[in-house]
């Protein structure tokens, strides 16, 4: 188990160096939340505090899925995935390594944006460890969503299309700008099926006063559930795909 985790870390480290820590990806990771912050600030400078949890959640979502959605498809395309399949690694280690790289990158970007927002808005963090866990669980869940797309499609362009198909509706469905309970039926049902909803709700617990949807421990539990579920689903599809395509 320890050896598997170490090897996953090496995969993640390689991905960070080869793909993530490159100017286009870093700038994309930072630009999106900055644009949203400015857009909301100019519209309503007094109300921007209310959307800070949503903006942090969006930053996590977009930075974690930026490359995750195409990394496996891309490596399959150029033949490099074979190197991982040839090494004495099991599918679980490979998948976790790919997820870890994406999560670490997403967390780096999101932590930076969070610091800036907290300092600018004069917010304080309650439930610090829960706050940390929300970041970790959400980062893993979003990266795994990207990985799920990556293992499920054959071409890079398909991965990008699918990833946008998932990501953009989440902006409106997950309580980033409008509270979920105020949405018309049946939209809340869709909201409850998406992990970003619980990220935003959890962050509201930690950063704002008195607006959350469900208790904090439930947000954490549900996010963890998403991590386990999407990992299991991705692993199963990954194994099947590799056996079909190789």
């Amino acid at each position: 188990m320890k050896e598997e985790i170490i090897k996953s870390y090496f995969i993640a480290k390689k991905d960070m160096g080869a793909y993530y820590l490159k100017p286009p990806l870093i700038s994309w990771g930072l630009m999106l939340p900055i644009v949203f912050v400015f857009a909301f600030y100019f519209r309503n400078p007094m109300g921007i505090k209310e959307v800070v949890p949503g903006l942090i959640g969006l930053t996590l979502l977009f930075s974690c899925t930026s490359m995750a959605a195409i990394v496996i498809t891309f490596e399959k395309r150029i033949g490099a995935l074979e190197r991982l399949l040839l090494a004495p690694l099991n599918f679980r280690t490979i998948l976790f390594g790919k997820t870890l790289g994406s999560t670490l990158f997403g967390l780096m970007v999101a932590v930076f944006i969070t610091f800036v927002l907290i300092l600018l808005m004069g917010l304080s963090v309650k439930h610090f460890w829960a706050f940390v866990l929300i970041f970790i669980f959400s980062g893993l869940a979003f990266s795994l969503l990207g990985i799920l797309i990556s293992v499920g499609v054959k071409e890079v362009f398909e991965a990008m299309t699918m990833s946008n198909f998932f990501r953009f509706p989440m902006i409106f469905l997950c309580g980033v700008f409008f509270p979920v309970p105020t949405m018309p039926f049946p939209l809340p049902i869709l909201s409850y099926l998406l992990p970003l909803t619980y990220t935003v709700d959890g962050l509201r617990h930690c950063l704002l006063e008195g607006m959350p949807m469900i208790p904090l421990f439930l947000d954490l539990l549900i996010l963890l559930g998403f991590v386990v579920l999407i990992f299991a689903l991705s692993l199963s599809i990954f194994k099947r795909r590799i056996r079909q395509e190789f």
Partner: protein
Amino acid sequence: MGDIILVNDLTKFYGNTLAVDHISFKAKEGEIFGFLGPNGAGKTTTIRMLVGLTQPSSGIAWIDGHDVIKESVEVKRTIGLVPETSNLYSELTALENLIYQAELYGIARKERKDRALQLLEEFGLKEHQEKPFQALSRGLKRRLTIAAALIHHPKILFLDEPTTGLDVMSARGLRKLILESKKKGLTIFLTTHYIPEAETLCDRVAIIVKGQIRIIDTPESIKAQVKESEILEIGLDRVSEELKGSFLSLNGVEKVLIDENRIRFYTRILDQVTPLIIRSLEEYGVKIQSINTLSPSLEDAFVRITGLDSDLMKIDKPVKGGPES
């Protein structure tokens, strides 16, 4: 030396297409075992099944005593694979690529860099160690890919068409490296469609056509199988297919092959057919420029055993896209 690769009745279907047809063979420890056959014969599919990249449809194979399906992780520790397209990470340098491979194979931290530097030295890549993989020439990429496959001291090295796409000098250098690796005790399984390469490098050769193994033996023994027939090679000022056809009906001529302006006759009664052939050529009005008798080569044996034209073996696969190109 014992058998390090054991294959029994291995078969692979892709949909309804039979790629590998119930093949069985053994490779001995320390030898260079070659799979010789035209493109599409099933060579790469066989390698991929042996290294655990492709699931066989039926049959069993063991690598160093490990079942390739049930013990694939153990098999992967034992082998190194150099695929037909060099597929290291284009963004990483030569040194970084080797260190990354060492990490994936669980080599101890303090040994990783030393092992990588040792391989770079052995493969003549020391001066290129800081260059990204994508900046290396095709020949250097190939060398680095072999070095990466050897990072964990495997017992068996699988080489899929090792010299395809390389210039003459790079190919020659690579063949030298392959022979040096063998001297160090490595077992090498290589596939090739270059007959002279198989003849030069391999201790034993399996000729594979349409997924079936036609013969397994040493190149010398394979050649000896066609030695009972002799070859008369005549250089002419012009050669036509019509000419070839007319000689096939000549009594005692078993096979006629045309190679540019030379025509080869395969016969068991050379003394008797030579005057007949020369007379016929004169009747056709072609001018004889040279006459030689030849010993059968592996190419001749290949042609005899498979019934295929040896020109088929000179066709390279189209070069795939990806990091090498």
